[in-house]
């Protein structure tokens, strides 16, 4: 059964790539992006074998390995999502034994670029530990356990996160936790940042990490190479227990999903009397699109969660300021916020999925659609940009830079709106469908996403360049530039937004049926 599921996954991947050249391109780009780094790391792992000293191997593998496990746990949640092709819900009607389904679906998680890369890394550690029979054995067992930990952990965490986010209350909990974490981390980091990290500290960190669940499997071979037989065995036993616990958790989540397939990722039983926001915004098609967008940002985790990240992320720069004391981080805070919010909706039509037909059948005019969709981002932008700008200026006591950050921020935000209006009328790349977990990316989607975002982000930066340049001048002490940046930023931003919305609207009206077909095809 396990082999059967892995084969199914391979078959699905092959058919997706055959059906969609875009996914193939995405995968190719993924190989190019990651391949170079991977080769470097592999060479490093092999060369560690020939160092006479054991310590570098221990440090590099324990810390690197723990980081890898952490990446498997965190990256799907904050960035790319997991692959939805083997959704547990789809097995609801088949009588597959639960344990086998759990193992099979986890094993199928290796099919894909991250899985292949991680497997190669683990194979390379066998070379690193080929100093003797015992370390090699430890590396093989530890490597296998580490691989299992990676895949199971990512499954367990994304499943838990999407269950949490699927209810309104869960989303509120996440939002509150996010704020608490931000507020709480700042003092913790200011303490942590006050001493310098030395090589000796690194050894200490390695010891600590080696005894955390993230490091057990990776630290064991070093003990065996060191002759610490019992310590090594203890770590391997702990790593094995971790895998067993994760498997048990994953199996339990699967059972819930399979027994109640409708419960995943939905706001069960939500109601709203009357027409809500549709009755409060202007009663035009523009107002309707704006109201619908805003309602969706509130009710749909696929939109709400990224909005939350985008809103809170710039506050993370406070740590950089705390640690490094650089006022540049404070200045960058409003700019990062404006930049991220500006072009955040560059793929907005994709989130409508095929429900977009209603816009096509109604022949809604392009300007209403373009402007209406931007409403939630515009609201967030008009709050976040001034707040971050003023907070940054107050904390760093750099009120002289405030007009510059506001001007450059306005340029980034509005240019982003312009670019997003054009791109979301051009072509949509695949996103998780309505009701699916926000942590899912169709195969090949990650590569395309990276390329599109790089191009779109670059376009925004270019459009905002005049204001950014003036802002840079102000930063380097030319006080007049700060006051010039404000009108220049606002003017170039408005110009870019007006042109972008116009062009986007014309494209949109012409290409509505084609956009719908794109969405029908990726469904």
């Amino acid at each position, binding site marked *: 059964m396990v082999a059967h599921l892995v084969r199914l996954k391979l078959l699905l991947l092959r058919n997706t790539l055959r059906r969609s050249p875009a996914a193939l391109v995405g995968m190719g780009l993924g190989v190019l992006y990651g391949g170079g780094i991977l080769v470097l790391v592999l060479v490093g792992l092999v060369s560690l074998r020939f160092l006479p000293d054991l310590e570098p191997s221990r440090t590099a593998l324990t810390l690197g390995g723990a980081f890898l496990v952490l990446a498997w746990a965190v990256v799907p949640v904050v960035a790319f999502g997991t692959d939805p092709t083997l959704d547990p819900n789809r097995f609801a009607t088949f009588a597959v034994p639960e344990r086998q389904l759990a193992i099979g679906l986890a094993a199928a998680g290796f099919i894909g670029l991250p899985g292949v890369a991680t497997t190669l890394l683990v194979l390379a550690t066998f070379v690193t530990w080929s100093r003797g029979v015992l370390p090699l054995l430890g590396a093989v067992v530890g490597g296998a356990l580490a691989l299992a930990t990676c895949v199971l952990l990512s499954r367990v965490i994304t499943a838990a996160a999407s269950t949490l986010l699927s209810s309104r209350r869960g989303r509120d909990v996440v939002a509150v936790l996010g704020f608490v974490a931000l507020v709480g981390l700042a003092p913790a980091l200011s303490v942590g940042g006050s001493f310098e990290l030395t090589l000796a500290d690194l050894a200490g960190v390695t010891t600590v990490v080696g005894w955390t669940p993230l490091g057990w499997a990776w630290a064991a071979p070093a003990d065996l190479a060191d002759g610490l037989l019992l310590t090594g065995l203890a770590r391997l036993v702990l790593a094995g227990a971790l895998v067993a616990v994760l498997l048990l958790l994953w199996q339990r989540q699967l059972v819930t999903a399979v027994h109640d397939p409708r419960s995943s990722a939905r706001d*069960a039983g939500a109601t709203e009397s009357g027409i809500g926001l549709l009755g409060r915004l202007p009663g035009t098609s523009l107002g309707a699109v704006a109201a619908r967008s805003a309602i969706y940002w509130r009710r749909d985790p696929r939109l709400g969660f990224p909005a939350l990240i985008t809103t809170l992320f710039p506050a993370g720069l406070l740590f950089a300021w705390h640690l490094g004391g650089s006022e540049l981080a404070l200045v960058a805070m409003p700019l990062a916020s404006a930049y991220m919010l500006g072009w955040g909706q560059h793929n907005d039509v994709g989130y409508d999925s095929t*429900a977009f037909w209603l816009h096509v059948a109604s022949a809604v005019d392009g300007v209403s659609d373009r402007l209406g969709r931007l409403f939630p981002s515009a609201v967030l932008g008009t709050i976040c940009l001034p707040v971050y700008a003023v907070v940054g200026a107050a904390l760093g006591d750099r009120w002289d830079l405030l007009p510059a950050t506001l001007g450059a921020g306005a340029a980034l935000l509005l240019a982003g709106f312009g670019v997003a209006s054009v791109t979301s009328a051009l072509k949509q790349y695949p996103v998780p469908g309505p009701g699916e977990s926000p942590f899912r990316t169709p195969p090949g989607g990650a590569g395309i996403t990276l390329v599109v975002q790089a191009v779109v982000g670059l376009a925004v930066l270019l459009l905002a360049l005049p204001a950014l340049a003036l802002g840079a001048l102000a930063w380097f002490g030319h006080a007049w530039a700060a006051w010039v940046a404000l009108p220049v930023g606002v003017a170039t931003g408005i110009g870019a937004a007006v042109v972008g919305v116009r062009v986007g609207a014309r494209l949109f009206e012409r290409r509505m049926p084609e956009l*719908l077909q794109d969405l029908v095809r990726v469904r």
Partner: protein
Amino acid sequence: MTGGPQTPSPATASGTGPGIGSGTDPALRIRGLRKQFGQTVAVAGIDLDVPRGSFYGLVGPNGAGKTTTLSMATGLLRPDQGSVHVLGTDVWADPVAAKARIGVLPDGLRLFDRLTGLQLVVYAGLLRGMDRDDVVQRAGELVAALGLDDAADKLVVDYSAGMTKKVTLACALVHGPRLLVLDEPFEAVDPVSAKTIRGILSRYVEGGGTVVLSSHVMDLVERICTDVAIIAGGHVRAAGRLDDVRAGASLEDRFLDLVGGSTDVKGLAWLHTSSD
């Protein structure tokens, strides 16, 4: 408007009178329509005239090209070749004017299902540029007429398949179109709801509107349609008044005649054994 729930009569939004008599163009005229997906020809040159005031049934086996034809007729899918006119307006040359006269119920496409039923119908009306007070009143009446009162404040994602069809029909009706194009409107709809929908559609046609619907339930088409076209393999095999197409036989027999295909089942003997 006071009193009980009413079905909106066609053409109240556009202000012009009911369809009959205000022109000679057919409600829907399709000429040489063709669509190919990759190597597969879905629609291979279809001509069709839907007279005003008719209740037109489109029947055909699965994969015959019904949905593709209806999508192209309503401006959702761009044809490779051919033309579509709705009441004399070219759908692909002047989509805005043409779409204002059409109400659509597509099959197999999603809805904005995070809205409540009432919100969705209001949204559909507002997208059409209607006055909000007007939309809210009509949406309320439609929801009541379709028996969705209790569910009006629930999210559409929690609706059953039949309720989803009904709320989509409300979206198609809210702007008072003169032509209704419905793809499989009775699929997954229970008998009571089907009767409600049939009643609304009949009154709509009596009021001068035109309905085009696709179905593969022959009995139903025979019962409610005045005209019928049989489509198979991307071609129209027969079209015209129901009685002319039937030519004395039942629609189902005529359909099987034209479409071909054996109804004999071979094999499957194991399915009939009750041994375990």
